[in-house]
């Protein structure tokens, strides 16, 4: 029922990214690889944490195992009106140690031996080992750039309804989607989610919807919750993140939301693995949601301010990349931007890496030769498709202007070197 160490032992992207991080540190590279902000969380949230810390003894002792009451209540209140369903704070929500642990509970609780799970690529790489750990089999469907048009935005990457439908078998248990998507930045449109929902309902499938970047949408793109579509609340687990919501990834407060009859199995996994999450951090996130509830839709809302700030950083990075002849794919949402590197010819003098995918070699070369750290995008693909998508690298633009300025300098120098050849 729980998979064994041999299966656990697959190195995942985090392990690889540790390797890249070490390399980046060694070469003192400007790090646009790591997926977390290098600026501070908003003051109101750090103040909320400090207030919780100086609260009475209960703030430092165990709280309710499935979620601190103040937090589940504020999440239920906040999201009920967005999902269009009365969310029961105690039945329909499980608080976890980051969205990562919510994903773990979902796969462990709901995927049985022999089940197939459809994963839309490119995917946050932990999905695959978690499917395998639960005894399931991962089946992949890639987002593909639209044919015939210039591919300038993440919105130009689409899922084929026929291709998706063709992957469904009698063993299919669930579909995993991530919107806004890491690494591509795609924000699924309502029609696209409807297409997925129709298949879920037709074939009685579950849907795991990883929505950690839900507040980060740009250019008027609208984040739609698949759980809000008709017939989907009862079969969807929606995963969220306090860390991504409030730019405090190190707090590790996440949650899963869904119908109680599904959540209860996840609660059992949680109870027998972690049991409780840290109290003070949950209290602080609860206060954050209370504030946002009051300010929702207004200019003072952090959920307006953060995407507005990142919108410009995204533009800034994109123009720096274009300046050196790279083709960025403008993300409609999220923390990341991918860039097509096929137009740059590089002579990898490093024969050690010749068996690796092109983008992996490029990333290492970029760190060593240019002092700029990124992540290779083929790491987010299945083995069967990774060679198809090995000409992209991923940048994180959720960084201080100074970091992006430093990156811009590197790219300017690079393009000057190119033009001088």
């Amino acid at each position, binding site marked *: 029922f729980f998979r064994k160490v041999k299966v656990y032992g697959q190195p995942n992207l985090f392990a690889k990214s540790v390797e890249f991080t070490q390399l980046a540190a060694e070469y003192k590279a400007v790090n646009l690889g790591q997926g977390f902000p290098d600026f501070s969380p908003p003051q109101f949230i750090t103040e909320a944490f400090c207030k919780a810390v100086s609260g009475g003894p209960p703030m430092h002792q165990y709280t309710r195992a499935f979620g601190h009451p103040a937090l589940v209540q504020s999440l239920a209140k906040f999201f009920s009106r967005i999902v269009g369903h009365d969310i029961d704070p105690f039945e329909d929500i499980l608080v976890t140690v980051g969205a990562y642990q919510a994903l773990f509970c979902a796969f462990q609780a709901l995927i049985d031996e022999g*089940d197939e799970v459809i994963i839309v690529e490119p995917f946050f790489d932990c999905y695959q080992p978690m499917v395998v750990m639960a005894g399931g089999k991962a089946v992949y469907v890639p987002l593909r750039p639209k044919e015939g048009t210039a591919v300038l935005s993440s919105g130009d990457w689409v899922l084929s309804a026929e291709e998706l439908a063709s992957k469904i078998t009698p063993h299919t248990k669930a579909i995993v989607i991530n919107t806004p998507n890491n690494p591509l930045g795609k924000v699924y449109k309502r029609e696209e989610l409807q297409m997925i929902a129709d298949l879920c309902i037709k074939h009685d499938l579950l849907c795991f919807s990883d929505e950690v970047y839900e507040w980060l949408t740009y250019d008027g793109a609208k984040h739609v919750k698949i759980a809000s579509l008709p017939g989907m609340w009862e079969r969807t687990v929606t995963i969220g993140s306090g860390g991504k919501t409030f730019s405090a990834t190190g707090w590790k407060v996440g949650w899963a939301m869904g119908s109680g009859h599904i959540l209860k199995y996840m609660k059992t996994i949680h109870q027998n693995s972690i049991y409780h999450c840290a109290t003070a951090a949950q209290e602080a996130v609860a206060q954050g949601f209370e504030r946002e509830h009051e300010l929702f839709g207004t200019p003072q809302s952090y959920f307006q301010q953060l995407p507005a700030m990142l919108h410009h950083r995204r533009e800034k990075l994109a123009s720096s990349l274009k300046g050196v002849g790279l083709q960025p794919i403008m993300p409609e949402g999220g923390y990341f931007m991918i860039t097509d590197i096929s137009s740059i010819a590089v002579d990898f003098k490093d024969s050690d890496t010749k068996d690796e995918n092109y983008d992996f070699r490029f990333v290492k070369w970029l760190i060593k030769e240019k002092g700029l750290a990124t992540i290779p995008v083929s790491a987010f693909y299945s083995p069967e498709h990774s060679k198809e998508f090995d000409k992209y690298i991923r940048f994180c633009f959720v960084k201080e202007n100074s970091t992006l300025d430093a990156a811009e300098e590197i790219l300017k120098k690079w393009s000057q070197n190119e033009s001088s050849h």
Partner: protein
Amino acid sequence: WNDSLFRLFRACCVVASRLLLCMFLFRVAFTSLAADPSVVNLGQGFPDIPPPSYVKEALAKAVSVDRMNQYTRGFGHPPLVKALSQVYGHVYGRPIDPFKEVLVTVGGYGSLFSTMQGLVEEGDEVIIIEPFFDCYVPMVRMAGAKPVFIPLRLKSGKKSITSADWYLDPDELSSKFTSKTKAIIINTPNNPIGKILTRDELQMIADLCIKHDTLCFSDEVYEWLIYRGQQHVKIATLPGMWERTITIGSAGKTFSVTGWKLGWSIGPQHLIRHLQTVMQNTLYTCPTPLQEAVAQGLMLNMELIGQPECYFTSLAEELEGKRDRMAAIVQEAGMTPVIPEGGYFMLVDVSALNQDLSDMKTDDDDDEAYDYKFVKWMIKKKKLAAIPVTAFVSDQSTKDFEKYIRLCFIKVNKTLLLWLH
């Protein structure tokens, strides 16, 4: 998929074990009964005394440092693993590699989970000493293994007065080791009895581990709560044991901050790396600011070792007074306390009261153990909550432990006095 989910649920939490069902149902029933504010709660195993102010201050300070609010190293925040390596290097009398021999987890509970998942395989047997912290059994089962029980036995002819009056029968223990035995779990100081395994007892266990080439999982979360005249010995320090032992510790129990949910596993690299892999695939990393604050608390106390202000010893001194006061109160009430050598729980023999509990019998469970009925009666009639000790034993040992309830004495004097009144 409803059928398979139900099967999964059953496999996960019941597996034909009345014990697990009892525990699960008991927790639910107990929580609602004891939630009545007029009930003095000496059941729950966490402090209502405040943690030392310097750890709270360290946490508030950590949150004000930008970098401390973002992801840290997955296997443990470097300042924390270094602090653990220093403190425990001193305690063990051997160098401990902070990066290879230490893993930070979500509480001692998370360490137990990572250990079971990382090192126990399907078909293994794991020896558990009764009474045991209740999560050991579901965790062993979830790893696909079989729990094998051996009870602590009361020395005959002794009216039980201290936890030292319980012992492990050497022949009985030896008989439990088979070719399938993967590990033995020990908990010292023990929850709920408070027994501290003596060096001789640990040597006996060690000899068997070496003879049968088994692992030892040593849950030492209460390691600092040792009362006068007692000594806590780490089984990992006995010859031949470092290489086969995982030792578990807890920040929550060390600094009276159970709500911080930070713990650690210490052991040889060839074992710890499997726990690290589990961590990487379940929740990836623990919260940063909490780890930073615990690191500071450890370093501060490291400087104070041997001095009266050192929390590693001062907390135990404070608790000894509470222990003795509680024992006196219990005796005055006509019951017999079992004075614990360590930990913050006390067993109380209620048989002298000869309490008639016939009106506590429920229709659906004629078989309910005496201590369960007694606790319900005590909550209803005496407004005092405790935990029935048979919750910590297997079916075959129920008869030996059903005259005991467990009280927690890490409570402010006001709480203890409330009960006295």
